[in-house]
């Protein structure tokens, strides 16, 4: 087991390095001059040249890459080209904001999804199953940005019960912050629900049909207890594995939601940095999202490999 983890970690680090190279040189491909981008098209050429010199963007690409990598090892992610503040001060708060949103969404969608999936499995083939499965599937196919707008329209504008942005005023209490995060979290819930429900449903069906379940029922255990004790436990693991994979998407991929809700998450930071060609922020943000994604994948792999027959044998008693 430890050898497995060590090996995966090692491979993960190599991937991370590859990612840093990809990202760094990928962004160099972008045309346009950094200083010009900051100062705008109508600023004087001498100002542009002066700023470029100041930012060090006139050095060779390899030198810049080396500077960046060495900086990373010292914990210095560099300075944002657009706002002249440190990249860490932009990226880490944003990461935390996205995490808050993701956690809220998970807290809602995981139990809901598992419940839905188990219910669907228990009523397999019947109306309730159809409703949950097809409904869930349809919800996931609607793009997140459409959900965002629809929810804002319904809850914030027509009904006026929830705020139309996700950023609570500074200094708000815990509950107020939650109130502001409900709508975007709901978008994520709708997008993920069908997915998790499907996994949970498949896992539940499989364990319902398994030998140990039949054994338990034959032995006289009430159906409910069987479901609770054996079936749920086994459908949980694949679902957790799915959830871990989704973490990567959540953190980096919710650009559209963050844009519509004007929320300073890592997705919006990425988008803005890319549009402004703010390379230091862009590179660090992509790297961080990559780290989250890789860690999540590693956890998912771990969880899945724990799903070996060993566990199946353990649960029959």
């Amino acid at each position, binding site marked *: 087991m430890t050898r497995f983890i060590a090996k995966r970690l090692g491979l993960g680090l190599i991937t991370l390095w590859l990612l840093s190279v990809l990202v760094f040189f990928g962004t160099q491909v972008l045309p346009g001059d950094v200083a010009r981008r900051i100062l705008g098209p109508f600023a004087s050429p001498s100002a542009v040249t002066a700023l470029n010199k100041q930012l060090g963007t006139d050095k060779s690409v390899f030198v810049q890459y080396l500077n960046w990598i060495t900086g990373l090892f010292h914990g210095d992610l560099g300075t944002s080209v657009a706002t002249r503040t440190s990249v860490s001060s932009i990226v880490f708060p944003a990461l935390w904001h996205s995490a808050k949103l993701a956690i809220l969404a998970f807290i809602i969608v995981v139990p809901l999804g598992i419940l839905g999936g188990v219910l669907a499995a228990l009523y397999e083939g019947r109306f309730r199953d159809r409703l949950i499965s097809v409904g869930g599937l349809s919800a996931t196919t609607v793009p997140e940005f459409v959900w965002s707008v629809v929810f804002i329209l319904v809850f914030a504008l027509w009904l006026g019960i929830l705020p139309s942005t996700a950023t609570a005023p500074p200094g708000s209490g815990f509950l107020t912050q939650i109130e502001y995060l409900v709508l975007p979290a709901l978008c994520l819930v709708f997008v993920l629900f069908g997915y998790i429900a499907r996994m949970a449903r498949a896992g539940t069906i499989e364990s319902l049909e398994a030998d140990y379940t039949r054994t338990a029922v034959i032995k006289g255990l009430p159906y409910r207890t069987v479901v609770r004790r054996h079936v749920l436990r086994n459908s949980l693991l694949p679902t957790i594995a799915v959830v871990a994979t989704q973490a990567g998407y959540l953190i980096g991929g919710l650009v559209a939601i963050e844009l519509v809700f004007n929320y300073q998450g890592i997705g919006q930071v990425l988008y803005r940095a890319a549009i*402004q060609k703010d390379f230091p922020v862009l590179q660090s943000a992509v790297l961080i999202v990559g780290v989250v994604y890789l860690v999540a994948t590693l956890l998912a792999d771990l969880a899945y490999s724990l799903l070996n027959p060993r566990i199946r044998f353990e649960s029959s008693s």
Partner: protein
Amino acid sequence: MSDQRQRQVDAIRRHIGEVENDLVDELVAGRIDRREFLRRGSVLGLSLSSLGVLAGCAAPNVTRVSPPQTKPPKAGGTIRTGIVAPAAALDPIMISDEGGLAVLGQSAQYLVWSDKNLTLRPVLAESWTHDHTGRVWTFKIRRGVSFSDGTPMTAEDVAATFNRLSDPKVGSNALSNFDGVLSKGNTKAIDPYTAQFTLDAPNGNFPYLVSSDNYNSVVLPKNYDGGWDKTFLGTGPWKLESFTPNQGVSYGRNPRYWGQPTVAERSEVTFYAEEQAQTLGILGNQVDVVAHYSVSGGRALITNPDVRTTQFRSSSHRQIHMRTDKEPFADKRVRQAMALLLDRRALVNGLLATKSDYGNDSPFAPVFQSTNQSVRQRQLNVAMAKQLLEAAGKGAGFSTQLLTLTHFELPDLAQVVQNDVSVAGINLKLSILDPGSYYGSSKFGTSPWLDSTMGITDYGHRGVPNLLLTAPLSSKGPWNAAHFRNPQYDQLVAHYVAALDLGAQRAAAGKIQELLLDETPVMFPYFYYFLTGARLNVSGVETTAMGHVDLSRAGFA
């Protein structure tokens, strides 16, 4: 007019200069109205009290424009305003975007304030005069003013500010305004409260260049050395409380302010990267005021009953340039035809929901006082366009690329233009780039904007047309995307710039306008209004077409 009044007027007229007297004559003859007189007079440096007296000479038929009566707001509270997010670091010398200048103007101030009617109001300057050549301008500086850190402000700070801004080595964004007008070292403090500017050439519009229209020209201490975004240093009524980059700024009252304290106790300015989010912000009551919104991004606000929209003319516009030095637009008949194919009425009424003036293919927007109103407005005329194309040998139409950037309604405008010209067999292939890629390096040869055959560019508001006449259209202009080289045009523009009195300015303008209608290197389809939105319980917000938002008198009912 009463005898006493007449005597007062005569007394004043004896003391003012020739140019100023000409202006009064225009007022008496009814050639300009009161508002224009006030505006023009303020530029020339006439004091408010003199202006008030002289304005009584207005010809009787001229209608007065009185502001709507609203109750003054109550003191206290926190005003929450949404503005477009500053595009770059907050450095007063380098700022070149609307979000940045709006933030700048909260805690820092200018010598002069240019309001929404382009009337100049003294702020850090008390009054100003010019010599008879129009080359030397002398400003009296207000006493008793100090910066937010306590240091007192004198004319030396003013001189240092303007010498800094006109220094090519510093590379300020203001250089584009001072190029050929004011050089480094020519601003002097002749005594602690008098600053004198010696210009490179006579300039009748100079006070605008030290006003809020030249938004980098906030007065800063003479030993200012950078780091403004940590202190928000300035002489203004608001003092920095906290600043979160990419998010917003909050202000409290400046206890050391020289003027009236702000009506509201606090002000929170929120940055919006996307206009849609800003629109949702005011509708969802996250902010009370939206400093500037556009029809394309805030259409919902125009008809919304909870929001009051203030609108006024601005010179913000779009330029559709056509390369005069290569096919297919080398022949001016082809360019005229393109301009005749544009359905401007549909653009003004549809695309801009009537919130705009018509453009007549020259930088002379209706909002400028020096615009010559007697030049006929170009209209849609498909038949004539086809004739011109035929005469130029392009009766069968042609194909070329139309380049533009993803900004406000520009992509929409491009699609409408594409459609409009297709009736003559002209096929425009659209290419819509992000702003960075569109402008490139802003140098000829490495900028799609300056190298393209046809493109649409956004131009923000300016208080006077000077820069718009030179940079995009004169032979050596750095923004001359049309590659227009016309010596007669250059000469006419030089006349306009040097003209001190309104009559001469208008005459020069008329000639320029006619020339541009004939040559049409660039199409100016419209000049759109500046729109500000405020919730019904808020009043006292003052915005300018430049993008400044003065919240010092804003409060709740």
